[in-house]
């Protein structure tokens, strides 16, 4: 199985990662002994029904959560041993997040929402530049309430990429959007992946999106059931679901 891919650098490596939640009196095993490697510049789609553990996996990759068992490496850094302050620095310097419900700060304009991140980043773009990348340079000074769902999600993407992160993690980025708007958001994500070479992971329960990925990981009940590599990537505009 060694080919051209081996020359790419491994960004994330997970070994025997498990996560157990205590929900009242029941223990829920959200992840069961996951082993996974993600390569630099890849666009990955994590596919699975709700409750399959994909959000937990993403949270652990992004340093929002820590596994109960197992180890996680980010470019040789052991995230499982990192302190809270280390994880904060990791997120600040390396990770961009996009969420299903956009999670914009309602009291800040599009430009200010992006600035929120650029102000604490090391080599950020200018907010206008980031918003330009997602086609929103006309709506810089609008508040979230004045933007459509798709526009809000594109602001969220601009906010996530403005710091030039090494990884972009998107949790159901189209989950709250209609078909056309969803496709436009996916185009923006693909553009970032291609232009900036950012390793990108998209979580979705929508199998139609899988066609745009380099690699498709399928999950069920906290386990990886399948990993597939797409030989031909489909452009987001041509996706159907």
């Amino acid at each position, binding site marked *: 199985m060694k080919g051209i891919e081996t020359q790419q650098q491994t960004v994330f490596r997970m070994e025997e990662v498990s996560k157990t939640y205590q*929900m*009242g009196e029941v223990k829920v095993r959200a992840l069961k002994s996951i082993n996974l490697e993600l390569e630099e510049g890849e666009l990955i789609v994590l596919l699975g029904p709700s409750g399959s553990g994909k959000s937990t996996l993403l*949270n652990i990759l*992004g340093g*929002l*959560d820590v596994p109960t068992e197992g180890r996680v490496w980010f470019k040789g850094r052991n995230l499982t041993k990192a302190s*809270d*302050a280390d994880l*904060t*620095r*990791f*997120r*600040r*310097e390396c*990770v961009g*997040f996009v*969420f299903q*419900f956009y*999670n914009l*700060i309602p*009291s*800040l304009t599009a430009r*200010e*929402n992006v*600035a*929120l*991140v650029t*102000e*604490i980043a090391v080599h950020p773009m200018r907010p206008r530049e980031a918003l330009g990348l997602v086609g929103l340079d006309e709506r810089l000074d609008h508040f979230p309430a004045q933007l459509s769902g798709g526009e809000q999600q594109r602001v969220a993407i601009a906010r996530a990429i403005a710091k030039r992160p090494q990884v972009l993690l998107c949790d159901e980025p189209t989950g709250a959007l209609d078909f056309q708007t969803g496709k436009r958001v996916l185009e923006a994500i693909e553009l970032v992946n291609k232009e900036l070479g950012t390793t990108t992971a998209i979580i979705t329960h929508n199998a139609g999106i899988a066609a745009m990925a380099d690699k498709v990981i399928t999950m069920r009940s906290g386990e990886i059931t399948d990993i597939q590599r797409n030989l031909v990537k489909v452009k987001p505009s041509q996706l159907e679901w």
Partner: protein
Amino acid sequence: MNSLDRKLFRDLLRQWGQLIAIALVVSCGIASFVMSLSAYDSLKFTKTTYYNQYRFAEVFASLKRAPETLSDRITEIPGVGQVQTRIVVDVILDVPEKEQPATGRMISLPSQQHPMLNDIYIRRGRYIEAGRGDEVLVSESFAKANNLKLEDTLGAVINGRWQKLRIVGIAISPEYIYEVRGGASLFPDNERFGILWMEREALATAFDMDGAFNNVTLTLSRGASEQNVIDRLDRILERYGGLGAYPREDQLSNHIVDGEIKELEGMTTVIPTLFLAIAAFLLHVVLSRLIATQREQIAILKAFGYTKAAIGFHYLKFVMAIVLFGATLGTILGLWMGKGLTELYAEFLRFPIFRYNADWRVVFGAIAISIFGAIVGGLGSVYKAVSLPPAVAMRPEPPPEFKPTLIERWGLQNLFSPAGRIILRNLERKPLQASLSILGIALAVAILITGRYFEDAVTYLVDVQFRHVQREDVTIVFNEPRPARTRYEVAKLPGVVQSEVFRSVPAKLRFQHYQHRSGLTGIQANAELLRLVDRSLNTVNLPADGVVLTKKLAEILHVQPGDVLTVEVLEADRPVRSIPVVGLVDELMGLSAYMEINALNKLMREGQTISGAYLRVDANLANKLYTRLKEIPAVAAFTTRQAALDSFNEISGKNMRVMTFILVIFASIITFSVVYNSARIALSERSRELASLRILGFTRAEIAFILLGEQAILILLAIPIGFLLGYGFAAYMSWTYNQELFRLPLIITRSAYAFTFLVVSIASVISGFIIRRQLNNLDLIAVLKTRE
């Protein structure tokens, strides 16, 4: 401004109404703190400056008569600075157009004006002319109360001779800021008591004091022991009928001035504390609500790599912004009011100078206190925000864990409807939030109780002193002890319905190393015009032997009934005796030691002798009595109960009533804002749950019951706690006002509790009504769409 600060700014703007209300509560607290503390500082400073500039003496002593040469011996006492001998006598005055006679205290002045102790400041007119024995300077308060102008004349019986005195000047002196006669009159009665300054020569001639003096005041040199000087002075004056020297601290006018200033000090603690505690509570409520709604925003900030410190500081700044706004407003307001208040006091106290200085200490103190309040109010919520793990914060809040309540564990659940059970489980699940709401409401209740306490205590004090203890209409004091048969002459005076005589002697009371210079008052065993009462206002019988003390005096001397006091009489043969304390009385004004009059005569080894009489007067014949009294040379002083009552009301009663009124207004507003705020927050926290119930078919009344029922329980729990807290505050106030001059009893009337209950109920009903209307407007679809 960075983006986080911009968010802060907009969050503040969005809730401006609620936040301004909190800022105003803060500013009320800070304003009252700055006002009272700056006025307190300024008055103390003004007083000290006045005392220094006009050389107010530090030790005072009266005596019968001593040769002027004695002043050299007094000057030689180690530690004595300047010495000034004087002639001081009380005379009855006939004021033009006044029916009642007045008492004038004549104080000698040197014939040439030069700097002296207890110097006078001439407001109008001029100094007396040498050799003019009929010229006097009159104290300003007395002149004002009696409409006296320059060139007016007063009639006076001076040593048995009728004499006309011409007013050439109106003056004030640091010694008589409050013009109080002393003895039984502890409050100024400016219409009937005033100071007259007269040339020493003339006064000496009239009272047979040539080359002699009967009063001496002195200052101390730096580092001198006051007590040593007093002891040495007492020993020197003993042969000359010394009545016991006393320090400035015990000088009556100074004592009252200090009491007034001290009242301000009391205001600097309790009231601002209450306001700031309530502001802290409101901040906590608003901030915890804000943080709950911004749960996801906090998670996002953390996901982006904002540190805990940055997020904590962000929310702390939110609180600080409100509090500092309030504090700034409060400081400006407080400084402005403080200047006004100082001016008012300075005018009231007739200080010739006025200094307002607001120390940086006051401003910094105010800001420090408000920051402390902000931190107390905000810390819990901020900590909660900071400690939330980002992955947890990202998810909607899990359904809260509910456990069977105490009531269900006791098997009583069938007594409650499902709605009732929702209420109980909610209260039990969030005990901290419930306790904070209870505490907030309880504090408002406590302020109301405290406010009412003042009014009730003063009313009670007046009632005890002027209805139960003092029951006479008029008190007359003779210029020297008179034989007992004088009582028949007194009884025959026009208009006198009932008369009881008394004997009073100046004395020092000692027990172990405690001592107090007051007097012994001998009254008739069955006295009705001056009645001794205990705490429950029952008459205390005066035993044939022994002394009965005011409880406060017993406290000062550390004695209890059964202990034996050493009494050092400062009159006549100056006997020193041991007398047992046989009882205590609960008088609320002044300090007294009572004996049966015959026992006192026996102690003095004198025949039956009296010093004055209490009279009950037929109101229709009162004027005849007054006219007659003006002509009797033996009468040195005259007071009426009504005048004493009026003057007490004027000085202390009025201040307290104004304060009470303000407190009650403030407290009512605060009660409303606390009750409304806590219900309003509950509504916004639970609108989703309540809307769900409406969709399930609950009626508006039923969901209102769930929400308002919970609030009602909180209020009902808060009221008794507030009563207890209020009782505590009142006890503290009563302890603060436990002075020699008067004492506020710890009295909280049933009507105070009822009044408080009523105010809280009205505030609750009004806020309940407003919330109910907001509940009716609940948009069911919109509420269900919002993500928790």
